[in-house]
């Protein structure tokens, strides 16, 4: 079951990169045709390939620096480090690097392109709040994301979908505020419209890739690893009780965290409506806790 999950994640990652390549190259083609500048097409090809390679090899570093996470050594926090080491041994994974985010909001995530290049990050707020069994539960959840190759897909999504969202935002602004006349204005208008359509699509891609299934699966296999589902469910309860939003998280990275770090969506759900629902990347915590407590090991 886990092995099919791994190959499905690898396929989804390849599909995502292909879609991105096609999109950027198609854009380059539209520009080069309309502006009668054939040189633009090879540029678009090179740029899109470079962006894809960068996102494959460096997206974990981009994500970590976006979150202001800093690597810690074993001597900095032996308890945390040993917990990660022991769980990795039990899961049969190489020990990931451990990063700390200096923020009082409780949260954690995992990133990297494969288990050999993996990182688990935890906020200082969560580190201080949790007891040992709870910390083990959280870390086992993150290690399950690593073992299932969830990290490769979710991390690349941050960068690729982030670029598309950024471009669409930018194009929309130019097309509506610029009000240019003639051929040029029409092209930009057209591209702006294409991106306007793509923006909700990007959100859907995030949601599809994340899906409730992924979090539930990580909860379940994490609980199998520690043989103590109560640890993770107690940790989730503590995180849910805290309403402080995580400052370093944004819509592009929210799906990576163990619990949605953009807490305002809980209280203002009715006001934002369907658009906020597009970004509902996590299943409700109550349901996750209920499933963990119903587990029979």
């Amino acid at each position, binding site marked *: 079951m886990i092995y099919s999950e791994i190959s499905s994640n690898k396929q989804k990652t390849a599909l995502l990169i292909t879609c991105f390549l096609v999109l950027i190259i198609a854009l380059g083609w539209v520009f080069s045709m309309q502006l009668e500048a054939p040189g633009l097409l090879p540029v678009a090809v090179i740029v899109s390939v470079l962006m894809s390679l960068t996102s494959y090899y460096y997206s974990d570093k981009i994500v970590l620096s976006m979150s202001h996470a800093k690597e810690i050594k074993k001597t900095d926090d032996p308890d945390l480090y040993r917990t990660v080491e022991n769980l990795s*041994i039990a899961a*049969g994974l190489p020990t990931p690097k451990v990063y700390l985010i200096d923020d009082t909001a409780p949260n954690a995530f995992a990133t990297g392109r494969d288990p050999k290049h993996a990182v688990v990050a935890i906020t200082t707020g969560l580190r201080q709040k949790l007891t040992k069994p709870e910390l083990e539960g959280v870390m086992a959840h993150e290690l399950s994301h690593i073992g299932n190759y969830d990290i490769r897909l979710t991390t690349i999504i941050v960068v690729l979908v982030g670029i598309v969202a950024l471009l669409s935002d930018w194009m929309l602004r130019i097309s509506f505020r610029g009000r240019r006349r003639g051929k040029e204005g029409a092209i930009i208008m057209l591209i702006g419209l294409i991106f306007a359509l793509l923006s909700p699509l990007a959100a859907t891609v995030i949601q599809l890739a994340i899906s409730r299934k992924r979090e539930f699966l990580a909860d379940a296999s994490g609980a199998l690893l520690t043989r103590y589902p109560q640890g993770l469910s107690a940790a989730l309860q503590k995180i849910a009780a805290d309403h402080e939003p995580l400052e370093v998280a944004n819509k592009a990275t929210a799906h990576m965290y163990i619990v949605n770090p953009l807490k305002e969506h809980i209280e203002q759900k009715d006001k934002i409506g369907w658009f906020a629902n597009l970004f509902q990347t996590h299943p409700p915590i109550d349901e996750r806790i209920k499933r963990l407590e119903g587990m029979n090991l």
Partner: protein
Amino acid sequence: MIYALIIIGVLVLGGVAIYNNLVHARNRVDEAWSDIEVQLKRRYDLIPNLVSTVKGYAKHEDSVFTKVTDARAAAMSAPTPSAKLAAENQLSQTIRSLFAVAENYPDLKANQNFLSLQSDLTDTEDKIQAARRFYNGNVRDYNTKLQTFPTNMFAQMLGFTAKTFFDIDEKGPEGQPVNVQF
């Protein structure tokens, strides 16, 4: 004639798939075993330091020290996983008796070196437990493959045999009820 060839072809392909599947599973078990050995070796390395530290304070407990040293030597030289299993359980027990001796020496319990060795040893024991769990999970998967149809018909013939779990000794101190005397 053609049908017969197709049937033979399918059977051969199926056999190859079953064989490769078993080899993968067995390799995973062997790999998991080497993970355990890494941690066991770490424990062997810690023990001489621990013994010499305790010796500095508790000079008259020679029998305990010999037991630990002997058990360590026996565990290190155990040839097969099942012999290793028995020897490791023996070693764990002697280490426990060594810590019981240390309880009687307050100066020793305050020694920084002793405390760090003790925490290293506890950590190593935790890691052995973790590695053991991973190993047992792989043994379970491998044995299940061996025992289920249709693999069970060829497995013996191809030279695959069931592996033993790395269990903690149920008859050891932790498996027995505690005797409290007043």
